[in-house]
Each structure stands twice: as C-alpha cells, then as structure tokens.
C-alpha cells in the first residue's frame, strides 16, 4: 500500500466509526482529535478495525501512533506492506 492508500484506509475506517464527521480536507499533520470529534472509545474502534481488516496487532502502548494521519501512515505503512486496500465506505 502506498502512503496515500494507507491514509485512505484509515480515513475509511474513521468514516464507519464516526459517520457524521466531515473527513475531506483533514490536515494530515494535525491531531485528528483537534479536527473531528473522536473520543478514546473511537480510537479503540480504529484499533479493532485495523486488526479485523488488515490483521494489524497494535499493542496498547502504540495507540498514540494514531494521533495524526501522518503518524498513522508512518506506523502502518510497514505493517500493511503487500496488502490490498479494503474500503467499506468508498
């Protein structure tokens, strides 16, 4: 998966967890929490969805890596290598 696809994969997951949030135009360098309404349970849902769709096992101490879309991409790219993008809300 490319960097853009990785970000798209995360955004697609967020769109299923927080269907009312506008995800177009999110700044990839700014914390997600500062741009859309996500609480700690939502981040847990992202973790569960990443595991379900892409078999990514994220230990609790890594949850902070989901802070921004850029940090998500940095963390997930090596872990999603060779995997196909799976979109639910495309």
């Amino acid at each position: 998966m490319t960097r853009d696809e990785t970000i798209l994969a995360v955004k697609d997951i967020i769109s299923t967890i927080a269907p009312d949030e506008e995800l177009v135009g999110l700044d990839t360098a700014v914390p997600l929490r500062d741009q859309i309404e996500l609480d700690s349970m939502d981040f847990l849902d992202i973790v569960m969805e990443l595991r379900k769709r892409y078999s990514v096992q994220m230990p609790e101490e890594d949850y902070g890596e989901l802070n921004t879309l850029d940090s998500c991409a940095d963390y997930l790219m090596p872990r999603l290598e060779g995997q196909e993008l799976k979109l639910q809300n495309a």
Partner: protein
Amino acid sequence: MSTDRKKYFRGSSDGKAPTFKNPLDGVEDRYDLIVIGSGLAGMTAANVLARSGFKVLLVEQHYNLGGMATWFKRAGGHVFDISLHGFPIGMKKTCRKYWTKEIADRIVQLESIRFSNPQFDIETTFTTEDFTRHLTNTFGLSNKSVDGFFAHVRGMNFYDDSGATTGELFEEHFPGRNDVHRLLMEPISYANGSSLADPAISYGIVFSNFMSKGVFTYSGGTDHLIKLMKAELRRNGVELRNKVQVDRIIVDGGRVAGIEAHGRTIEAGSVLSNANLKSTILKLVGPEHLSSEYRKGVESVRLNNSSTQVYLGVKQGETIPFVTDLLFTSTRETFDSPSLCDKHGESRTFSFYYPKTRPGSDRYTLVSSMNAHWDDWAKLTDEEYARDKAILIEDTLTTLERLIPGTRRKIDYVEASTPRTFQFYTQHQQGSSFGTKFEGLGYSMNLSDQITGLYHAGSVGIIMSGWLGAANYGVITANKVDSFLRQLESIEA
C-alpha cells in the same frame, strides 16, 4: 414436583424456582468465547465479538438478560425499572456503535433534575450551561472558580492520578462550601456508589461524562431495551442461555479452557466473565491458579455499597402532574458521604416514571433508592427483616406525601428491595450494586496476565460503573479478547 411448578417464587425469601430441564441442552461442546453474565458489559462484549465473526455462547444465571439493567412486573399492570434513572449522553453513541441505530434513537434527554434539602431547592437540566448558572446565581460562586473546577475535572484522566480524594478536590475549589459539595457529590453517589473518600480522578471522569449535555434515559423502558439487545445478539449469532449456574472456570496449565456448568464441560478459546470481580477470581477460578500477590490483592479489593429501593405503583387511571424526572431529597441539615448509606436515613432519590417512559402506556410508577450497607440487612431474622422493610416503605411514603401532597392515596402497590434482594438476583457479593471500589479496576484489567485467555468486564473501579461505564468496559475488554482470539487463530492456522 407438580405442586412446586405451580408455586409462585417471589424474591429472596422463597429461594429459586426449580428448573426442569438442563438449560444447556442443545449447546455445542466448543465456542471461541464464553461470556459469563449478561450485564451491559457482558452483552455488549458478546455483541461486538459475535459481529466480528467469533462463535459466542452467553450464559446468565437469571431468567432475564440485563444484569442490574433490569425490571419486573407486578399484578395491576405495574412495571418497575431498577436502574433506568439516567445516564450520560455518551450512551447514545455507544448504543449506535456497538448495538443498533434503533436502540440509539430511543435515547432521550430527561427534562428535569431536582434537589430538595435544607441547604437548597433547585431544578436543573444538568447541562454545563444550566449547572454553571446555578453555581453562579444560586450559590453565588464566581464564574472563574466554576470554570476552573470544570476545566480541572475535564482534564483529569486515568493515567495521571494525583492521589487526591474527591473531598479534597471539592475543598480545593470550593473551600468550606458544604452546600456546593452536596450538589456535586449527591447525584454521583447515587449513580455509582462513590463517596467523598474515593479518588478525585474517578469522580472527575464520571462527573464530566454527565455534566455535558444533561441526563438521558431510554424511551420504551428497560424491558424494551433488553428485548432489542437480545434480538440483536441472536441476529449476530450469539447462543443465549438463561438460568445457567456456572460452577467453575476451567484452567489448564495457566490457560483458560472453558467452563463447567450443569454437569457439562464446554470448551472455549477465551472466557469473559461479567460476574462480580471477586466471585469470578476467588470462586469460579479458584486461588490455586493465581500468584499469591494477585490473590491477596483481589481479596483486599473493597466492594462498593449496596442499595435499598421502594417501588411505588400508581393505580390505573390516576395521574401525577409532572414534578421532575429525578429528585434528590434529604432532610439532613448538612451533607456528608457516610450518611447516604444510613439505614432508615434521611436521604433518598425518587425516579418518576411517567407514561412517556413507555410511549403508548398511561401508567405511572415511582422508584425510590437509597444507598445501603449489606451488614445492616444481612443477619436479620425473618421478623426483623419484614419489620425493617415496612419501616423503609413507610418512610418513603411519608417523604413522598410531604413533597407532593395527595400522592400517597394514588399508590396501590408497594414493595421494597434490600441488599439481600440484590444479592439474591445478581449473585453479587454482599448485594453490591456498583461493583468494586477503585482498586478493583487493575485486577479486572490484568486478569489475563494471571490466566491466559481469561478476561473480566463489569462494574469495577467506579469509572467502569453505571450503564455507560459498563457497556464501554465491555467494548474495551472485547478489544483485548479480539486481539487474543485472532492471535490464537493465526497460531492454529
């Protein structure tokens, strides 16, 4: 046995109705996950994991699902809700994400919360704006000190516990203001059994959850909610079994292997217990499987207090004008935490259930709740027990009549429950209605470090208490179970 079948089993004094067939008939020999207990934590975890594709068996000792989220019916058309008093707005999102939109759409705001005591008499929506208005106008506090308090509690999180108590937190922001402390503490004490002596952090998190958009309830009543949840669990393939008394959680070589119940062994890759924390670890698992440090720690975890309730059914055809939805009332001159648990004490809450609780119905019920100690009720003789229940009912009716004259004559059904009743129906140790105190949380969260594949979710540590706390804790634990089961699958594959 034919006469036993006809007997009407009512409450703790009669014991349990006999079962005539094995409640596990037809259940398979192995599941990915067995959930013990169908409180909101157990049910929510079961639903999330079944939706994720795991094969789940949910067993419950009671004849209803729901745990403390329950109700009962009595002759005369009365339906009484045990714990529908009110929950934070977050429940709407939780139900939408982990249950269904239909359930979430039925979550509606309570119109009014009232306080009536010798220090103040106020009505509030319990929203930040309205609460701030009262704190500044009625209580004469400066906007700066109110905003400072709100900012402090909102900023609190689980990972930086300062060690301060809730009482110290109040004293820091509103020194010497017993009336303000009462306003801030009383509703939370009734919501989760916490007190001024509990950690400030547990107060801050729970208070902030409530103190945003007000207090909410479920339109349709607890029975309707549980009916929809049950249907959703079935739709997602969960095998549901009631009246199942689990004898033992089977542990083999440090790993969970399944459960034993009704003469059967059912295997599972993982077991999630939504039973009381101490019962789960000390009784269902047994001390021989635990490190001595962990075992001693669990033994020292304090249970939260229990409750008494008085259920008042309004005669068909009678009406009660809208007074408020939730009333915190006391005749005690000043506030202190321990007195909220006094037997025959001066403080109680009333939940008013108008026809709006169950749209289409024309019935009214009232439920009065007090916090209570197990020890005050546990060892009474039958005569003493009956006498004390009668006193409880009479005190409640007298209070009600004082607050809303003319109401007493409209009541045609009364019944009281005590810590013994809660113990009987939920099997919680000492009838605890709010799980354990703060220290229980760590032991609950770390159970799988002791026994691989075994998890606990349920009312612990005050934060994970109440409808929202329990449901969300179910999801937090479901995430761990999901991770564990997927690892297990990839090893086996």
